[in-house]
């Protein structure tokens, strides 16, 4: 039995006992810029700043996992309050927390248990934050259950991306994202390096739109319990409560829809309408369990650690998980869409140097690729015009009559971000677009500037 000396020579007790093995020791299966050592660990603790978007099933796990993976500077943003139905998986919340903001309780609970970790909660909508807020983080980790929210954060993160004259992404402007999602026993985890790996928008087809029932089926030939429920919810409600919007979180409203659905089902001899099923259909409830959230969040946290330290290979770039029949995991390397409006080099717009900001905004409404109304315009983090809040609108209103060229510091060409409303599948959605503005006839611009997805 050799090497008892090694056991005697115990290392100093440290919280980082296990993580140090990974961060302090050299390895062969690591990222190209992995520099093991105490400095790496200390830098991770001191400088890496991660934003966790969502403090729900994934977010709670992510905060815990990141805090126990060497990260000490975390922010969490979530607009929701805690509900009883969260408690079967969102382990940072207790019954007495119901009604409190998720972000605040989650941050507090993790800080109580792990000393040295600082978590700043943001109890607000993701759209309420200035774009620059998001630029403050080294990595953004997404624990969301909505496509719209993912799309928004993706657009924000990609808006920081700059390209050099050869259309190669400038590394220091890449804002990495790690995204997780679950449904029942299924889930995915992915790494998005804007400009290098596909962004959320490049592979938007991975999230097919929800199938809706034709209204004529609901009104004339209902066949299933869901048809009866949707009839009560989408047709009967409006007939009876003219002008009063249906509130899915109001139990009386839900009960009304349920009762109406039962009546209709009885009328047509259709089985299967229950209160629980009514809630499921009306609120489009996605079943959720603790284990899948734990698995997917852990994969995301591990990838976040790898991006920050390069201590191992990175997931490249999309992991699908299915635990319902045995266990199937698969890694797929998706490809970027080179013409992607969000992470691509941007839409090139050629403008006359004399154009005013107002005229420019009118152009955005007419532009076939944009059709963007109610635009707010920012240039290099500076607000040129803001639709809201009223204070900012008032402050920036006078810019509307000024020349865009002057407002942009007389640069011959530069990136401008516009935030506004656009129509998607007949629905108004907020969107953010990146434009490569080029002023005609100004020195330094030639016909050679034809790069990008114009």
């Amino acid at each position, binding site marked *: 039995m*050799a*090497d*008892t000396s*090694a*056991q005697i020579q115990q290392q100093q*007790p*440290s*919280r*980082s*006992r*296990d*993580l140090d*093995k*990974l961060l302090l*020791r*050299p390895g*062969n*299966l690591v990222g190209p810029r992995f520099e093991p050592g105490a400095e790496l660990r200390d830098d991770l603790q001191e400088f890496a700043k991660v934003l966790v978007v969502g403090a729900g099933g994934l977010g709670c*796990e992510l905060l815990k996992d990141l805090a*126990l993976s060497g990260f000490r500077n975390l922010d969490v943003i979530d607009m929701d309050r805690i509900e009883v*139905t969260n408690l*079967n*998986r969102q*382990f940072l919340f207790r019954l007495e927390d119901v009604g409190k903001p998720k972000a605040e309780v989650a941050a507090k609970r993790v800080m109580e*248990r*792990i*000393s040295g970790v600082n978590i700043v909660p943001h109890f607000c909508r993701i759209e309420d934050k200035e774009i620059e807020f998001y630029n403050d983080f080294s990595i953004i980790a997404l624990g969301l259950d909505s496509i719209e929210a993912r799309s928004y954060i993706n657009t924000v993160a990609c808006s920081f991306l700059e390209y050099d004259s050869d259309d190669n992404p400038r590394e220091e402007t890449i804002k990495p994202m790690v995204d997780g999602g679950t449904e029942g*026993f299924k889930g995915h985890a992915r790494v998005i390096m804007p400009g290098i790996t596909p962004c959320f928008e490049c592979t938007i087809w991975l999230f097919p739109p929800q199938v809706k029932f034709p209204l004529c089926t609901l009104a004339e030939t209902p*066949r299933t319990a869901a*048809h009866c429920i949707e009839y009560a919810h989408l047709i009967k409600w409006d007939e009876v409560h003219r002008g009063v919007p249906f509130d899915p979180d109001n139990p009386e409203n839900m009960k009304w829809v349920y009762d109406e659905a039962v009546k209709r089902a009885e009328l*047509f*001899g*259709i089985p299967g309408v229950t209160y*629980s099923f009514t809630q499921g259909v009306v609120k489009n*409830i*996605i*079943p*959720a*369990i*603790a*284990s899948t959230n*734990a*698995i997917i*969040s*852990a*994969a995301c*946290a*591990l990838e976040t*650690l790898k991006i920050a330290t390069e201590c*191992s290979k*990175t*997931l490249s770039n999309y992991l699908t998980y*299915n*635990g*319902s*029949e*045995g*266990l199937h*995991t698969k*890694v797929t390397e998706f490809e970027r869409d080179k013409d992607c409006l969000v992470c691509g080099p941007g839409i090139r717009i050629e403008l006359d140097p004399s154009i005013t900001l107002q005229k420019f905004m009118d152009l955005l409404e007419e532009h076939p690729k944009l059709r963007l109304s109610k635009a707010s315009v920012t240039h290099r983090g500076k607000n040129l015009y803001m639709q809201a809040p009223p204070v900012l609108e008032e402050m920036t209103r006078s810019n509307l009559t000024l020349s865009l060229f002057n407002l942009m510091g007389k640069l011959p060409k530069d990136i401008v971000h516009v935030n506004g409303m656009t129509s998607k599948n007949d629905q108004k959605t907020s969107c953010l677009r990146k434009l490569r503005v080029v002023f005609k006839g100004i020195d330094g611009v030639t016909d050679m500037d034809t790069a990008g997805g114009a």
Partner: protein
Amino acid sequence: MAEPKVKYDRQLRIWGDQGQAALEKSNICLLNCGPTGSETLKNLVLGGIGSITVVDGSKVEVGDLGNNFLVDEASLGEPKAKIVCSFLQELNDAVKAKYIEEYPDKLIETNPSFFSQFTLVVATQLVESSMVKLDKICREANVILIFARSYGLAGFVRISLKEHTVIESKPEHFLDDLRLNNPWPELKRFAEGFELNVHDPVAHKHIPYVVILVKMADEWAKSHGGRLPSTREEKKEFKELLKAGMVAPDEDNYKEAMESSFKVFAPRGISSELQLILNDSSVEVDSSSSDFWVLVAALKDFVANEGGGEAPLEGSIPDMTSSTEQYVNLQNIYQAKAEADFLAIERMARNTLKKIGGDPNSIPRATIKSFCKNARKLKVCRYRPIEDEFNSPNLSELQKYLTDEDHSFAVGIYILLRAVDRFAANYNRFPGQFDSAMDEDIARLKSTSISLLNELGCNSATLADDLINEMCRFGASELHAVAALVGGIASQEVIKLITRQFVPITGTYIFNGIDHKSQLLLL
């Protein structure tokens, strides 16, 4: 509505009241409450598992604060089992939580009967010798066993028990049971009540596609000596005939019929997977047989006789374009047949029970109903004793994995996780556990793994040096994120096993946190 129902709403939508009741009745034992074990139980306690017993002999150390959320600074020096247990209790007061301050290895050695009180044991971070002993104990006592281990960026989950049978396997994609290729007389008669050439366009576009296909298939069979379309040309021709039956381009029922025409072409009778279950020797039932096998025996009888080669009808139909009345009538036809099939199976099962000397009413009707509804989806999972797998793994599979690019890391991790235990048995430490002996440990781990491969019969096989290096670098560390992932999988398997829904992992799941190319190894 009662509070627990609301609290568990999102999971009740997956496993229902019955699954939840099974969880709430179960009694789980956890061995070692490091992060892997703690995270496993955390997920189960949140979901409302009945009772838990945490077994761990160690005290909370500073290093534990960096990888386990269930211990905190105030608990330094306290028994880890006690601290973890009290935090788990805080998560859900409906769960009965207790702890035993004892090293699992010692308990396995000195008190094997301890384990027989549990429904299931989750054994984390055990070394090979303890795994083998515990496996024997649990098999003897009919206690379900799950092993889980996190090791650096690697890990594994392995279930062990003699047999696990599933009625509600709930597959995601499974062909609906419409019998379009083999309609029974009532369905044929129902279809005959429709006229495909009906002049009223509204009536025409509301003929359910099931009716269209049954009628068209019948017509085809009449002109083809009783056969259904089987060759590529015939299938194409059949679809053309369907298309020709459309009177307007917007007839969704005809579009559905064309999309579903493959259901007419599908072979009749039961799947080969179900046939394997019917051929299993357990179908020869006696007084010691489980309800599942008594029902399978009845199913075998049914398929051979009343069923005419088919399993009992499932009895539900998907939504399809139709008038409400016709849809409801069609549904009733399917339900009536399913009910008749169920009664036949029930009769056979009760007779069988009588024959083997049991109470003919011992199996509840609801169970038989569920069995009939899911007869096509039955699953039987069997697990080799750990010792057998360790001593004589399936050699051809092992050799296949060793030479297959997709499996090379996973099988490397599998071998190395065994090699580190041998290393530890020989040198009293895990390879790379201490900084001072890294180079020496790498060389020793390499030779240990080579001799292990030799013993298993893979004489010329070697593992990638990079992976051996990496394993030493890991130095038996238990990283929180890896533990949360491995523990998450372990808890998911507990749920599947206890609820008897969905299909648990068979084989060993190797977690590969290096590039996430994890694999299931069947050895």
